[in-house]
C-alpha cells in the first residue's frame, strides 16, 4: 500500500514543555491507523499538527507525497476531520451546519447531497432540528457527516468516542469500520480507549510523553507469549502453593488475592490439564492479554501486572 501520510521527526514545544518529540510514522492507504496514548501524551497535539491547527516546531508532514506546509490548501481538500467534541453551530440546524462546511470545502452543494449524508449517519429525520437539541452522540455523528461531505481520502478522528454512551461507542465503531471497508477511506483515529483502537485499527502507534513507543500492525504488537492468564479457584492461596511447587512456578504472579500467570497463550490447554491433575478446583481461566496490557507494559512496565489486580 502506498503511504498516504508520512511524518518525519515532528517536534512541538510549548515554551518549556515538549509536547511532541521526534515523532515519525507512516499511514498507508486504506489503513485504520490507531493513535494511542494516555491523556496528555501528545496525541491531540500531533493530530492538530496534521490539520495545520498547530505549527510544528520542527519536522515535516507529507500527505500524498506533498509537503503539508507548501500544499496546505490542496491537501486539506482531501482531508476530513472530527476534532474532539464537534460542537458545531448550536443555533443552526444539522442541515445548515452541514451546508456551511460543505461550501467551505469547495464542493458543489445540493439538497440531495446533504440529505444523503445525513441519512448515512441516521440524522435525516432531524435535519432541520437545531443542533442544541442534539445528544452528544448525534453531534458526533453530525461531525462525521461534516468530515465526509466533501468525499475526502483521509479521515482524521480525534477522540471520536469521547462523551458517548456504550451504544454511541458501538455505533461509532461500526461507522469507522464502514468507512474503511465499504468506502475505502484511510482513517486515523486517536483514542485513550485502548479497547476501541484494538477493535477497529489494523495498524497503530503508541505515544507516551510525546515520544513514539511502538508502531506496527496491531496483531503483531500483541505478543502472545506475554499473555496474562487469570485463574479463579475455590481457594487461590492453596492453588498458588501447588503451582509454586510445579513447573508453572516461574509464571505465577499473585496480587490482591488474584492468581495471575504471565505465559504463552498456546500453553493454556496444558495448564488446564495440569490444574486438573493437581486437584485444583478451577472456577475459570481467562486469558487477559490485550492492547491495554501491552500499552501499560510500554508506558509503565512496573504496572503491567498490577493493573489487572486493581
Amino acid at each position, binding site marked *: 500500500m502506498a503511504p498516504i501520510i508520512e511524518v518525519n521527526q515532528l517536534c512541538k514545544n*510549548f515554551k518549556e514543555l515538549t509536547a511532541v518529540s521526534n515523532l515519525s510514522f507512516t499511514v498507508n492507504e486504506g489503513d485504520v491507523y490507531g493513535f494511542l496514548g494516555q491523556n496528555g501524551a501528545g496525541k491531540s497535539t500531533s493530530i*492538530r499538527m496534521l*490539520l*495545520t*491547527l*498547530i*505549527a510544528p516546531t520542527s519536522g515535516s508532514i507529507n500527505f500524498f507525497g506533498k509537503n503539508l506546509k507548501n500544499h*496546505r*490548501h*490542496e491537501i*486539506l*481538500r482531501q*482531508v476530513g*476531520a472530527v*476534532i*474532539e*467534541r*464537534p*460542537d*458545531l*453551530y*448550536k*443555533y*443552526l440546524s444539522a442541515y*445548515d451546519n452541514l451546508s*456551511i*462546511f460543505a*461550501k*467551505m*470545502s*469547495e464542493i458543489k452543494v445540493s439538497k440531495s447531497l446533504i440529505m444523503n449524508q445525513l441519512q448515512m449517519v441516521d440524522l435525516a429525520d432531524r435535519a432541520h432540528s437545531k443542533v442544541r437539541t442534539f445528544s452528544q452522540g448525534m453531534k458526533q455523528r453530525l461531525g462525521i457527516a*461534516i468530515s465526509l461531505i466533501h468525499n475526502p481520502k483521509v479521515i482524521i478522528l480525534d477522540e471520536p468516542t469521547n462523551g458517548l454512551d456504550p451504544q454511541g461507542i458501538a455505533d461509532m465503531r461500526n461507522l469507522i469500520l464502514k468507512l474503511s471497508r465499504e468506502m475505502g477511506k484511510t482513517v486515523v483515529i486517536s483514542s485513550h480507549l485502548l479497547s476501541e483502537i484494538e477493535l477497529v485499527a489494523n495498524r497503530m502507534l503508541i505515544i507516551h510523553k510525546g515520544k513514539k513507543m511502538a508502531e506496527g500492525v496491531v496483531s503483531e504488537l500483541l505478543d502472545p507469549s506475554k499473555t496474562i492468564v487469570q485463574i479463579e479457584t475455590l481457594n487461590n492461596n492453596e492453588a498458588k502453593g501447588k503451582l509454586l511447587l510445579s513447573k508453572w512456578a516461574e509464571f505465577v504472579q499473585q496480587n490482591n488475592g488474584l492468581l495471575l500467570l504471565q505465559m504463552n497463550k498456546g500453553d493454556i490447554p496444558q495448564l488446564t490439564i495440569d490444574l486438573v491433575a493437581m486437584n485444583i478446583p478451577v472456577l475459570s481461566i481467562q486469558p487477559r492479554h490485550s492492547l491495554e496490557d501491552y500499552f501499560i507494559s510500554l508506558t509503565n512496565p512496573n504496572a503491567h501486572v498490577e493493573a489487572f489486580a486493581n
Partner: protein
Amino acid sequence: MWKLLQIELFKISRRPRTYIAFVAIAAIVFLIQFALKADGKSYIDLITRDIEESFIIDKEKALNGYFICFLLLNTLLVQVPVLVALIAGDSISGEANMGTLRLLVSKPISRTQLMLIKFLACFLFTVALLIWMAILALFGSMLIFGTDNMMVLKSTGATIIERGDVFWRYLAAFGYAILALTTVAALAFLLSVFAENSIGPIVATVCIVIVLTILSNLNVPMFDKTIRPWLFTTYMVGWKGFFYINYNDDGQTITGSVENWHAIKRGIFLLTGHIILFVGIAIWVFRKRDILS
C-alpha cells in the same frame, strides 16, 4: 471569497444577539421621537434659552426632522460602539468558545482569508446598523416631523442650514459614522483573537473606548499635542463637522460649505489608519497562533 462571505453573513443573521442592536436602536429612536412629538416645544425652549436674546428662532419650524435626526445621532453614536462590539468581539472568540474554530481552520481556506472575511462581515454588520439608524432617525423623523431649515446649536451660538443643503450632509455624516464605528469593530475584532469567550473582548472594547474617550475630551495642555491627536476616539464625533458651515463677509451661511475640511480629512485618515492597524495585527497574530481551543 463571496461564498465565504455569504456563509459568514448567514451565521451572523441567524444569531439572536445580532438583533439586540437593531431592537435597541429602534427603541431609543422611537422613544425620543415620541417624546418630541408629544412635547417638543418644551425641549426647544430649554435648549434655546441661552441664545434667545441673540437669535430669532422660529421654534415651530426648528422642531423638524433634520433637527431631530441630529439630536438622535448625538445620542445614539455614543451608545452604538457597544452594539458593534457585541458582534465584532464575538467573531473569533465566539468560534473558539463553540469549538468551531478548529473546524474552520482545518478547512482549505487560508487564515488570512478567513480573517478578512470575518472582518468584512463585521463591517457589513456595522453598515447595516447605520443604515437602520438612518432609516429610523433620518427618514422616520423626516416623515413624522417634516423638513425645514436645520438649526445646529454650538457653544458659540446657533447656525441655520438651508433645507436644500442638509440632506447631503447627513449622507456624509453617516458615511463618516460608518468609518468611526468600523474602527471600534476593528478593535473588538483584534481583541477577539486573544480570547476564548466573547465577554472578555466585548467588555475590554467598551472599557478601552470609554478610557480613550475621556482622554480625548480631557482639556489637559500636555495631552493636546501628544496623545489626543493620535487617539481614534478624538475623531469619533467628527461627523458633526459636516454640520459646521462657513459664513460669507455679510454673515450669511455659504451653501455647500464645510467649516473645517482639514479636521474631517484628518479624522478619516486617522480612523482608516487605526482600522488597518487593528485588523493587520489581528491577522498577524491569528496566522501565528496555535489553535488549542
